[in-house]
């Protein structure tokens, strides 16, 4: 019985230390999360960009991730940005430095469309 309690205590200590470290790390994460360097994600799943309309502040880096078994692209209709071909689990990032509406589509499956609104 005593051994068991000690074992749990032995396990709990590193967990607590890790949690404490996480709290210490947290302010730094928040510090990076300002509008000037914010991150946002678009997931490509089942031939759909999600969310279809993404609204972000100026300076946001948007990362597209392809979760399909089929390659896709994310290409700005107005020629602002153009991803390489993203195979399964591959990503593409673009940082939006100007306010505006940026429609885009998959050049391989043009029925797939999306929009990034930068404010």
């Amino acid at each position: 019985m005593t051994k068991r309690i000690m074992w749990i205590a032995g396990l709990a200590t590193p967990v607590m230390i890790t949690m404490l470290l996480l709290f210490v790390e947290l302010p730094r994460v928040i510090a990076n999360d300002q509008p000037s360097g914010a991150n946002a994600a678009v997931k490509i799943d089942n031939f759909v960009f999600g969310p279809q309309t993404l609204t972000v502040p100026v300076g946001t880096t948007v990362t597209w991730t392809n979760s399909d078994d089929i390659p896709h692209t994310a290409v700005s209709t107005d020629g602002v940005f153009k991803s390489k071909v993203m195979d399964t689990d591959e990503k593409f990032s673009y940082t939006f430095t100007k306010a505006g509406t940026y429609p885009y589509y998959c050049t391989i499956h043009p029925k797939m469309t999306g929009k990034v609104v930068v404010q």
Partner: protein
Amino acid sequence: MPDKKQDLIDQQLQDLNNDGVDRRGFLKCMAWAGTGLVWTMSGGIPISRAFAKGHGKDVGKSGDFSFVQISDSHIGFNKPANPDVTATLQTAINKINTMPHNPDFIIHTGDLSQLSKPSEFDTLDQVLKGASAKQIYFVPGEHDMLSDNGEQYLQRYGKGTKGNGWYSFDHKGVHFVGLVNVANLKAGGMGSLGHEQLEWFEDDLKGRSASTPIVLFAHIPLWTIYPDWGWGTDDSEQALSYVKRFGSVTVLNGHIHQVMQKVEGKVSFHTAMSTAFPQPAPGTAPSAGPMKVPADRLQRVLGITDVNYVVSGRSLAVVDSPLGEGSSASESGSGPGNS
């Protein structure tokens, strides 16, 4: 969703000639068999019939010939829907090589590769080298034009073609036209031929006798099968207006990895199975992504298409044939008076 699909099929069936052929049965059977297609050209009107039921029995007379359509090899694809697409392509080639009659040539209706990689094209070439038919005609799929705007495709498979790879040729009295509808696709749209190609196509048909059998082949279907998934070509109607005066037009497509058929007047549309992986029937899944079937069923949903042209008859016979053995196929015709 299933109702939507049924409506779609019913709508397609309404367009068919009343020729006494149970086309619904054909479609259902083909959806099950799901692999290859044999077309026989007989006097310019397409008929389709079972691979297993003595297809090609009329072939061999003077002027008669057959060819095989294969499609959507997706060399480089390695996901669960088919971890070895090279092996299934090889099986398709073996099947062609053991056909009772030798096809004059093979048509590949695109998506040769998964990612347009040189190594993928190399592998494809290696497997196709083993085909007994040495002449192979290609059109690109969207997967063959990734990254480099299709330059590599043109260098390898499109020498002497126009634009993005379109061309025409004549074979034993039949006029074949390979069209490209996977380039410069517009946001929100489907497949597209584009103004330049349409002009060329109209010009290509000028001066040809209306009795010349025409075979059009392109990757994305030239008839609207399911717009929500982009299964159609935005400007196909214009292209089809140019062939209206011809007595027999056969349209062969790929892209949707399953057999679908429609007859509209003298135009017969047909899509082929993939040699790589099946895709869901329109509207029956959240997306058109690869469909995983049990491993022992895979070879029943992949296949080839044999097309036979018989001068003395009046029809072009098409036989879809799965890669796997022991599957049945059905017999069907699409022109009045075919047998």
